Each structure stands twice: as structure tokens, then as C-alpha cells.
């Protein structure tokens, strides 16, 4: 059985690299408004980095949904975990 991945820790590291901010600490209720510089361009940079690091693919509708006002880090992590489980 493969070891469980700590998605939150991996994602936090990716956030720190993409936003060039080593002080970022992810919380479930954080949204794009809480991370300075999280615009449409960095959103794609972030998703490309997540795809590369975790070996998953995001569809256009998923990328768009993650930018929605009702989305936060918690829903981002849940989407990644669902994709990882689906293989």
C-alpha cells in the first residue's frame, strides 16, 4: 500500500514557490483574496505546478470553479485528493 500523501503540506510548498512567499501557511477557509498576487495568471501557474508535482490534470471547468467566490483552500485540497484517489 503506497504511503498517504500529505496534500496540504505539498500544496503549501507549491504556494510558497509560486507566490515567492515563504511565510504562506494554508488554512481551509483561505480564498484567493487572502493571498496577495493570486490573479488569473498566477492561478494557472499554480495549477500547472500542482499538476506537475502531483501528476494530475485539471479540466477547464475545474480551473474556473477554483477561482469562484465560494471556493477556498479546503475545496482545492478536496479536489486534489479526489483526483489522486481516482488515479
Amino acid at each position: 500500500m503506497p504511503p498517504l500523501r500529505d496534500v496540504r503540506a505539498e500544496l503549501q510548498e507549491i504556494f510558497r514557490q509560486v507566490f515567492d512567499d515563504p511565510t504562506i501557511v494554508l488554512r481551509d477557509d483561505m480564498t484567493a483574496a487572502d493571498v496577495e498576487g493570486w490573479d488569473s495568471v498566477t492561478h494557472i501557474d499554480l495549477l500547472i505546478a500542482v499538476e506537475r508535482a502531483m501528476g494530475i490534470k485539471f479540466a477547464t471547468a475545474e480551473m474556473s470553479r477554483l477561482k469562484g467566490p465560494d471556493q477556498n483552500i479546503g475545496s482545492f485540497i478536496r479536489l486534489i485528493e479526489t483526483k489522486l484517489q481516482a488515479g
Partner: protein
Amino acid sequence: MAVCSLGFLFFCGAAVIVFHLAPGKRLRQVILACTSALFLAPLVPNLRSWIWFAAVLVGTYLALMVVRARGRGAVVAAAATLVLLFYLYLKRYRLLAEIIPFPLAMDMRLHPVELVGLSYMIFKFIHMLVDQWQGQLAPFNLWTYLNYQLSFFTITAGPIQRYNDFLRYWEEMDLQPSDTRESLLLWIRILTGMIKVGVLGTYAETVFHSANRTHVVPTLSEALLCLYAYPVYLYFNFSGYTDIVLGAGGLLGFRLPENFNRPWLARNVLDFWDRWHISLTHWIRDYVFMASYKLAATKFPGGARYWSYALLFFALFVAGVWHGTTDGFIMFGVLNGLGAAVTRAYGDVLRAVLGRQRLHVYLHSPTVRLVAIVLTLHYVCISQLFFATDVDRALAILGAAGSELLYLPSTLSSYSWQGPAIAIAIGTLLLAALWKSDVAGSIIERFVLWIGQRNGWLSAVLCLQCMFVAGMFFVDWAFQQEPPPVLYMAF
């Protein structure tokens, strides 16, 4: 049927009463379909247009079926390309019509074909096509597809609702009707929209046309009126339309996406487009920018930053030229694309020069925010001047304003004191309002919330609005004026 008319108000009222009296989901769906058909019928001018309308709907539905059955990217690309070419040709983009050697009999410029809402139908179709290919689309059939495409509150000028959202409300039609408070708020929104379109927008348009006397070199005051009046008209006309259809949709159980979020407080061009015609901007962001930038940044990670500038320019240029085919719209697209790319590049430079902490201080400075808002406001007004007129006329207006402003100090003595004094007073008040816009916005929001929680106050507001709108329609009737059109229905 014009949305800002007494006829639409009665049409909406009748639809809501019949809808809520009908028991069960299926019957309500049929009523909504009939309502959309009744709304659409007078907007299709002739048999040839009906045939093309049917051909577009059947053709796009068949393409969706093929993608669902085969799921191949090549089919998606071919279908999207064909539909776009058809759109460009039908919208009379002259360049394309001259390049493609269609026989005269097939040249649609020679036939009176008018497809209402074609742009919005194509936006919805491409979104469904891509999402179906990527396995993200909820189940669809011909019935749900037709109702999604033709629903009367989105067909003429949006907002661009996503299919999965539409289907959720479509399947929830047997839920209880909204409570009294919500119904009052939705009717208030419809009437607010009518006042915006019928009074405020119409007045701003009149000011613009009286100042924009073609073949005459404008004075400074005329040039400034042209510069500011047209964006005011555009905002009230389109946001008023949006209020009307969002209210109408809400009364039938559909929550539609918002299209405006205080656009005049944007601090750069990208921010502006995130607040203006939001459903279109988000569509372009998702299906033009995100798709192309992801491809470019994956293939060429070293040059991702430069690709982002180029593709932002392209995305906003597309948003601009979608509005029309003349040189003015092309210039409008170029200015918006340029504004977006420069905004992004400026942000990158600031980040590199200032570093994270000083950038944070810079971005949160009230002075920087005020300057950014004022600059963006004027940049947007200038770009919309090209939208309103053609390139030559817009340049003439800007040139006249620029040269008069340059020599203003030396010619000030020849002006009477009232004009400049009033202009300075209005400018100072606007700047003060912008400076404290957060406080002002918060006070207004709290006041609206306070009223919104009291049905008695809401009823009073609605009664006042009814009297005002009745007066507005009476004046239109007395002076035999047509209901004001919604400009975005032409796009």
C-alpha cells in the same frame, strides 16, 4: 419585445403568476419553455432567419452529440472552428466576407438574416463542447439544450450562464416559490433596471449625442461631455438590462451570474474587466486565456511571463472586437489588450523592484489606490470613446480636448468663472467620494441591508418605483417614443 417596456413588465408578471400556480416540475418547465418561445417570436424578423436559427440549434446540438459519443479533441476543434467562422461571416466581418469566395446567392450580407443572441448562443455552445469533451458537463438532451440556449432571461444579451448551473435550477423547479421579501427585492431590482435603462441611460445618451456633433470640431466642454457621458450611458443601459433579467430569472427560480461589480472603482484594466460584463470576461478567461496560457506555459516554461503578456493582450483584444466590426471596435480591443498586458508587466516590474513587503505597502496605500482608480477610469473612458464613434471622430474629440487643456492656463481669463468653478467643485467632490469610497459603500450597503430586512419599507420602495416607472412609460406613450433599446442586444 423590448425588456425596458410596459409590455415586458406585464409579460413577466403573467409568467410569474402562471408559473407559481402550476403544480409540479414538468408543467413549470413547459411554462418556462412557452414563455421563452413567446418572448423570442417577435425578435426573429423573417422565415429565412427562423430557418438559420433552427439550423444553428440543430447543428450545434448534433456536434455536442458527436463529442459525447466519440470524445475526440479533433471533433471539438472542428466544431468550434466551424461555428466561429459561421459567426464571423454572419456578423458581417467584412474582411472575412471578402476573403472567402462564397457565391453571391450564399452571401449573407445580401439577405436579411438576423439571429438574436447568436453571440451568446455560441459562447454557451463552446463552453458545453469543451466541458463535455473534458467530462465536466452535466447530462443534457435536446429539451434541456433548447431551453438552456433559448431561456428568455439570457438569450438576448446574457449574462452567460453555465449549463451545469442552469440544469441545477431547471431540476429544482418544483421547489416552493421564494418568500415575500425575496419577491419584493426581485421586483425592486427589475424596476431599478428599468429606471437605469429608461431614464438615467437615456439621459446620458442624449447628453452624449448633443455634445457629439459630427463634422464640427468640439469645444473642451463638448469633448469632456463626450468622454464621460458615453461610459455613463453604457453602464446604465447594460447594467439596467442585467438588473431586469436577473430579477425576472430570480422570480422564476433561476439565480443568474452577476455582470457588474462597481466597475468605476477598478484600479487597473484587468480589475475593470473583472467588474464589467463579468460573465463574458470569465468566459474569455476560461476558454481563451486559461486554455492558451496553460498550453504555452507548459510547452515553454522559460518564457511563460512573456506569453502571459501576449495572451492577455489577445484575450482582451478578443473581448473588444467581439463587440463590433468597425475600426472603432478594433481600436477599442487594442486599447483594452494593451491596458491588460501593461498592467501585468507593471505588476511584475513592481514585484521585482520593490520586493514582497514594500509591494504590500504600495498596494495598500490609499493615495496609490486613488491615483490608480482615476487613471483607470480615464483610460476606460478613452477606450469607450472609440467604442462609441469611429477612430477619426474619437481622435478628433481627444485632440480637441488635449489641445484646449494644454492652453487652458493661458486662456482661463477668457472663460467665465462659473464653468471652471463648477467643474472643479464636481471633480473635488468625486475625488473625495472616491477617497472614501469604502466608507461610503459600506454605509450604503448597511442602509440597503437595513431596508432589505423590512417588508414594509420594501413595499414602500416598490410603490414609489411603480409610480416613477408608470410616469416614465406615460411620458414615452404621450410623446410616442419607442422603448429604449439595450445596446448589447446588437452584439
